[in-house]
């Protein structure tokens, strides 16, 4: 609008009209100006799968993991697993043994005949298909999750078949029971007395896996627990991916494929429950018991007590019409899993319903259903005040599921959840093997976990720490001395060079080309994820200038040359000076001081919204700036909120964001406290305020 109380001239009038149209009346403007609101959403795929696992799991014994790692091992001096033949009982951190022609060390064994059994649980860090590999020259059986049926049955050892693999789909962040048997002996007819005349065959055994999109490695002890967890039901039906156009997965739309997937998942679940009815419901044909099971099942799936009408529709009607009680259970399960009361969150109930609060909390913190304790709190009126809700959130954030969800946030925030391609130029970086790339990801995982799950859980430490987790394979590449086979452990890198997650080699290698760094990719990550700025797409697709075209230029100079045009600079004046600060890290995230013989210039700058430009000498300067920048805190709070809650933060009002940011500051930027605060805040959504402008906007736009 033209400023001042001047009269509008004839020539100005169309401009004013056009401005008003564009700003308020055009379809785009209406979309833009529509007030954000907490929209009815279906469960995301992650939420649905977690909810089903927890729903079925709620009928089994609950086990808490404890701190111990590794598997319980028993060693027997016979081909059978009898107590009187047991020689050793201990915890093995992992299963990777080479006995050669001897028996296991630590006991007296006939090298011709001994057996082992390892038991405990396996923790799946990610969701996806795991390939489990057992290598041995002798008989072996492996059970994962289902302890009735082995996924590897190689009790018959045959030919040169010494590698046994099986695939299993697991949902991440959970523990699954595992048992591995080994036997060096013959089956069938016992002719052991002839053994003394025979040469001793060699024996070894390794339990390995290939995690989704990773390479094979022996299953590390941090993913093994000596406690045996109950079996977990996992929905393996593939689902179409959720909408992520707003930067977080959300359930804002449905499709035929999604609906069909929910049907398959419902059938998969009802089959599973039918097959485990005795265990879950205590009977396979007792109508009373099965009805009681169904009442609990539906109640837990609906996340609230059942009204008489619901109970009649979901349970009684099924038991009256089905030919037998077991079929009725199948139908109840199908109906429940297809029900909008299970599939949707925030289903139009009154504002301060304690069961809604319970669901909001559990989906925000765990992406899953409320647990027993939470439902009990809702039932007894102890989920009413903010304080009560915060106390529950505090309890829930300690659950492994909460960390798993937070971890997923960090991977998305850092734009590495899709597993970037880390293949590098093997001539320039012969040390950078696929194994190194896989280890780097683990290193980032552990480094993140170490900060976020620590007592302080300090956002600033995430940016400033120089303690990284490296192992023997990574150490020499990143300038540390460790024994070659050293497991992952915290090591300090030079604080003048490294500072926090920004300079973690995995991140730097991910935002780089095959043989050179990429200040632009790094700059875009910084601009969007860390500073929370929006960037328009480049006006056209550009191919980066090949280094060979300008052999005398540094990467920085080449990037500056290519992005010089004014059309580029509207964004690249922000992107480049941020990305340049990380130029001392090459395509595999190694520190360097010179490029092509030229000393590297890491000077950079940033112009905050409504503030004076800031200059940085390099990576550490930049990290320190971000750690203390209110703008970065705002961006972090906003993104974290939206990832946890799966609704736009604007829908909760400006005050919510200010309050959250205030408490983040007061709590010394404690991310775990922030998680609790966000879940609490989102448990009490405001009523969507109506925006007057759009209500009349259906009027004809001025011509």
């Amino acid at each position: 609008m033209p400023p001042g109380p001047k009269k509008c001239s004839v020539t100005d009038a169309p401009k004013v009209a056009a401005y008003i149209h564009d700003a308020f009346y055009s379809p785009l403007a209406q979309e833009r100006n529509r007030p954000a609101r907490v929209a009815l959403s279906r469960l995301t795929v992650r939420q649905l799968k977690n909810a089903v696992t927890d729903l079925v799991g709620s009928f089994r014994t609950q086990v808490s993991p404890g701190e111990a790692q590794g598997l319980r091992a028993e060693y027997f001096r016979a081909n059978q697993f009898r107590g009187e033949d047991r020689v050793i009982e201990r915890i093995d951190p992992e299963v990777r043994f080479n006995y050669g022609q001897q028996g296991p060390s630590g006991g007296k064994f006939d090298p011709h005949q001994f057996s082992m059994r390892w038991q405990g649980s396996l923790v799946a860090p990610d969701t996806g298909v795991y390939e489990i590999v057992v290598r041995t020259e002798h008989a072996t059986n492996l059970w994962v999750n289902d302890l009735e049926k082995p996924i590897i049955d190689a009790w018959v050892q045959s030919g040169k078949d010494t590698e046994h693999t099986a695939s299993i789909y697991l949902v991440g962040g959970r523990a699954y029971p595992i048992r591995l048997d080994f036997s060096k002996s013959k089956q069938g007819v016992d002719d052991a007395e002839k053994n003394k005349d025979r040469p001793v065959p060699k024996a070894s055994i390794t339990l390995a896996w290939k995690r989704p999109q990773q390479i094979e490695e022996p299953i590390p002890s941090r993913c093994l627990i000596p406690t045996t967890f109950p079996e977990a039901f996992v929905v393996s039906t593939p689902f179409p991916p959720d909408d992520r156009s707003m930067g977080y997965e959300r359930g804002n739309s449905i499709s035929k494929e999604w609906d069909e997937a929910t049907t398959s998942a419902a059938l998969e679940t009802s089959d599973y429950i039918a097959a485990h009815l005795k265990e879950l419901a205590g009977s396979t044909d007792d109508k009373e018991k099965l009805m009681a099971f169904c009442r609990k099942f539906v109640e837990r799936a609906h996340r609230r007590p059942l009204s008489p009408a619901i109970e009649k529709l979901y349970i009684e009607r099924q038991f009256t019409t089905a030919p037998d009680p077991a079929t009725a259970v199948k139908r109840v399960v199908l109906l429940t899993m297809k029900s909008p009361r299970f599939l949707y969150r925030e289903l139009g109930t009154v504002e301060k319903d304690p069961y809604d609060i319970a669901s909001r909390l559990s989906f925000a913190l765990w992406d899953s259903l409320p647990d027993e304790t939470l439902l009990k709190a809702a039932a007894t009126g102890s989920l009413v005040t903010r304080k009560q809700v915060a106390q529950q959130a505090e309890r829930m954030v300690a659950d492994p599921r909460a960390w798993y969800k937070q971890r997923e946030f960090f991977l998305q925030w850092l734009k590495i959840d899709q597993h970037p391609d880390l293949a590098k130029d093997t001539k320039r970086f012969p040390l950078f093997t696929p194994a190194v790339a896989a280890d780097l990801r683990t290193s980032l995982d552990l480094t993140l976990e170490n900060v976020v799950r620590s007592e302080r859980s300090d956002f600033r430490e995430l940016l400033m720490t120089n303690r990284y987790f490296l192992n023997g394979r990574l150490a020499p590449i990143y300038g540390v001395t460790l024994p070659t086979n050293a497991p992952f452990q915290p090591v300090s890198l030079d604080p003048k060079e490294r500072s926090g997650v920004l300079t973690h080699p995995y991140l730097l290698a991910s935002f780089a080309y095959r043989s050179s760094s990429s200040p632009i990719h790094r700059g875009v990550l910084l601009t969007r994820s860390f500073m929370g700025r929006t960037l328009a797409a480049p006006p056209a697709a550009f191919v980066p200038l090949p280094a060979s075209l300008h052999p005398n230029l540094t990467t920085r100079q080449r990037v500056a040359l290519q992005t010089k045009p004014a059309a580029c600079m509207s964004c690249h004046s922000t992107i480049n000076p941020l990305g340049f600060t990380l130029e001392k890290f090459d395509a595999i995230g190694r520190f360097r001081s010179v490029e092509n013989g030229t000393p590297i210039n890491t000077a950079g700058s940033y112009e905050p919204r409504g503030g004076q430009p800031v200059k940085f000498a390099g990576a550490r300067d930049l990290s320190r700036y971000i750690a203390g920048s209110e703008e970065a805190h705002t961006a972090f709070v906003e993104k974290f909120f939206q990832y946890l809650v799966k609704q736009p933060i604007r829908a909760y009002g400006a005050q919510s964001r200010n309050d959250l940011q205030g408490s983040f500051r007061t709590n010394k930027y404690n991310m775990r406290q922030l998680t609790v605060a966000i879940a609490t805040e989102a448990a009490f959504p405001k009523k969507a305020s109506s925006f007057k402008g759009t209500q009349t906007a259906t009027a004809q736009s001025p011509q």
Partner: protein
Amino acid sequence: MTYRNTRREFIQNLGVSAAVLPFLSNLPCFAAPNRSARKQRLVIIFSPDGIVPSTFWPDTEGKIVSFKESLTPLDPFRERTLLLNGVCDRIRGDGDGHMRGIGCLLTGVELFPGNVQGGSDTPAGWSSGISIDQELKNFLQRDPATRTRFGALEFGVMVPERADTWTRMSYSGPNKPVTPIDDPYQMFSKLYGRLRDQESLKSVLDDLKQDFDKVGSQVGKQDRQILEEHATLVRETEQELSAENKVDRGHPVPVLEPGVHRDNDRMPQLSKMQIDLLVNSFAGDFARVATLQYTNSVGQARMRWLGVEEGQHDLSHEPDNNTVAQEKLTKVTKWYSEQVAYLAKRLAETPEPGGEGNLLDNTIIVWTNELGQGNSHTLDNIPFVLVGGGMGFTMGRSLKYDNVAHNRLLLSLAHGFGHRINRFGNPDFCADGPLSKLTGR
């Protein structure tokens, strides 16, 4: 389907020039290409521990005039039966007679060395090759014209719940034993489970729609849209299910007698249920190949319902001069031939869907055993009893061969399906090609 092209055209279509014609003519596959468009089927039935030769094999070669005691139940199918004597399992190598007996029976190739130790000989592992049923399944599944939902089905009756060389006869490849399904209810849900799922689903959709309406009325206007879209999808599912249910499956879904669980004494019921399911799966064209494995090699069925209290394997070790034992063994073998006869009867009673004649006209049943005789553990004179018109063999005869390798019979089965391979299993035993005398007079 018509096959009007000449042999010349056929060869031209293959892109083979006339110059190689004379060589090709010598290969059986070009001499008589399989032009049958009928649905050919194969059932292999296994029973263990050998037979009693004196009550099994006819005294003379040629047309079967009457059966000896063990085979009398097959009398109604005498004209459709072919007995092959003198066919021997000549595969040697690792494993004892029972292990090689079952493991090489359908594969025609040695067992791998391994850790399963028998009563004698060296320990062994799994077979080092594919079995003929799986080979034919793959062959039929490759061609859209003969492809079926499962290709092959592996039935069992009282197969022990342990996987070792003695309990597996079917192999999908080296070191890849196929586990037979010996629980009729499990087989039923494999065959008809999808259908039952659809019925269950259909039964709840009405209730679901009702609840969608109720929920829809509770949410605000802006939120209603997604629920309405969702409810539309639910209605579509219902329509699709109704459409699908109209598709003809060729036979009614069988009803199984409930509560027949794995138990030695229930073997007759289990056998009948499995055979009924097998016949149904052929009538519905779910598969063209099936195996039916009674117990296992070294099987210990106690046929108390025949008045035989001893385990079959223990009995089979008794010498020839123990006449009581031999009589009992004859009874046992006769019981197995009753099962074969029941299968033949059911197939003969079932008209060929969409074709001429009945299922038995287009099916070959091959009933066999891992041993020729239990007390000698011989792999010579393995019993091979063929019933039905599936291969176009000349039936109603008893043939005597002179110690021919059973690989050649496996080749004959392949060729019978038009799968013109020239070796199966150990090539040393395949040089003479398929068995002679099976067709013709």
